């Protein structure tokens, strides 16, 4: 922030006028509600919503001793790991191939980047249709292979379905960043290694992968944030957190407990814990970016 070299204007009132719109919206719709969430997390409403009582850390205590919360945490971890691994693995493979081909790289890129623009809920509906037990093409195919697919009844299959839908949507994003990272690696390194007798796989593990690690790490954080927070639409449209609570991720649980369960205090406490989590992830992301600048 210390850009002392940059000359500046000296007006006093004008900057406030310029900042006014952003500050107003920020205070009204971000800071105030976040403060409310912290405040509400210390209160509990009775069963009829008639009176509220200050309960200190009781909401947190209740949350942290509730097996359902840990189930949801576990679900979130499995879901995020699944989405991140599947999507990044496929994207890296495709980007490595697109980096190889001399002709048609642009053509492939054009065909691979657009799922980024598909809304999560819409991606969910597309895959729901493919795996629908009565009308789905893939469910039919699995049936022919002797696999009984019904994600409305089986939790593990429901989780797999939302992982696939979420990973599919994220392929384009990862592909673009991996491709940019790969293209930044000088070809001379590969040529030197090839002359020394290293095959394509060896070159990938010994040269490409280490040099790609900043990109990989950056994408890891972005994908985790995506899986944690941006996939609400997929889960809501496809499984509604079910069957049971097998696909209830932490974010979905905030919604479910708050809007359907009407447990204000409990939902607020969950919100606060999630904010701490985003805060931690943001710090990690920024630390990394500082390093990348020196790179």
């Amino acid at each position: 922030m210390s850009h002392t070299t940059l000359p500046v204007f000296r007006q006093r009132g004008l900057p406030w006028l310029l900042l006014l719109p952003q500050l107003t919206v920020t205070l009204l719709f971000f800071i105030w509600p976040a403060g409310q969430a912290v405040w509400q997390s210390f209160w509990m409403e009775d069963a009829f919503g008639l009176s509220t009582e200050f309960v200190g850390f009781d909401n947190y205590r209740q949350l942290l001793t509730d097996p359902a919360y840990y189930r949801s945490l576990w679900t979130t971890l499995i879901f995020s790991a699944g989405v991140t691994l599947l999507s990044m693995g496929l994207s890296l493979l495709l980007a490595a191939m697109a980096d190889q081909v001399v002709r048609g790289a642009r053509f492939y890129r054009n065909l691979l980047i657009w799922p980024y623009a598909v809304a999560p809920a819409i991606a969910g509906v597309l895959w729901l249709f493919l795996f629908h037990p009565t009308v789905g093409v893939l469910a039919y195919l699995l049936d022919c292979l002797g696999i009984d697919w019904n994600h409305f009844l089986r939790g593990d299959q429901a989780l797999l379905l939302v992982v696939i839908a979420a990973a599919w949507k994220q392929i384009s994003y990862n592909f673009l960043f991996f491709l940019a990272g790969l293209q930044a690696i000088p070809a001379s390194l590969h040529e030197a290694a090839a002359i020394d007798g290293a095959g394509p796989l060896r070159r990938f593990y010994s040269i490409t992968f280490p040099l790609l690690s900043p990109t990989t790490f950056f994408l890891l954080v972005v994908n985790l944030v995506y899986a944690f927070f941006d996939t609400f639409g997929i889960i809501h449209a496809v499984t509604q957190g079910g069957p049971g609570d097998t696909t209830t991720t932490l974010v979905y649980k905030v919604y479910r407990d708050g809007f359907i369960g009407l447990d204000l205090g409990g939902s607020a406490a969950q919100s606060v814990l999630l904010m701490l989590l985003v805060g931690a992830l943001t710090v990690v992301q920024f630390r990394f970016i500082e390093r990348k600048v020196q790179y």
Partner: protein
Amino acid sequence: MVENRRAVTLISHLILWFGVLLVLFPIWIAFVASSHSSEALLSGTVPLWPGDRLLLNYRQIFLGGGQSTLGVPLLRMLFNSLVMALGIAFGKILISVLAAYAVVFFRFRLRMLCFWLIFVTLMLPVEVRILPTFQVVADLGLLNSYTGLTLPLIASATATFLLRQFYLTLPPELLEAARVDGAGPIRFLFDILLPLSRTNLAALFVILFIYGWNQYLWPLLITTDESYYTIVMGVQRLLAVGDNEVQWNIVMPTTLLAMLPPVGVVLIMQRLFIKGLIETEK
């Protein structure tokens, strides 16, 4: 390189084609489904090739009628989504241009505090503070309104940061020269800064349009009046039919229409899209 380039290239192309098919497959099936009758889809044999009901299905979703459509015309939902996408894109760009300008080109008391207030919103996505944000919007009487749909979403800090980063790369001589020529802050903003940031703003617009069009949770919460439904949540409403059969021949064309505008924007403004995507994450 030393290996047999032919074989390597062939394998690369095969794998890339597999990727392309994987990405396109759900769309193809959705398109096929949008050209069959409901009975054909439910009969058990899954069609992989388009049928003859394409125009009929699209006519039905546009004209409505039948028990399978919502109480709101499709065009109305598309219009609402457009209002939301444009409102969020223009709103965010407007307030970010001004705020980033103030933070970079002025020195005033509490400047750092303002900076951090804006910065901290990065850590507060809608999803984690839905209930209190909903209450604020309800208290302001903004449920079921376009203001309620757009205003709470325009303040996130990403756009402000992108512009701040860009402003900081400008040579200091620019401001000196403008000052020597007698330009004040407003003149500098409109005559120099904005023209220089034209491509950045366009790239930002592409990303924000997609972001706005694809909003789901927020419209779901604050619209109970059907005439404010957006197309993305409309698709979910078509699926939520309880124990009745889902009308897939209606759902699938609606789904395709819901994704057409943002996908079209990406494909048409590809260069700007890639620029925007890579810069917003820097």
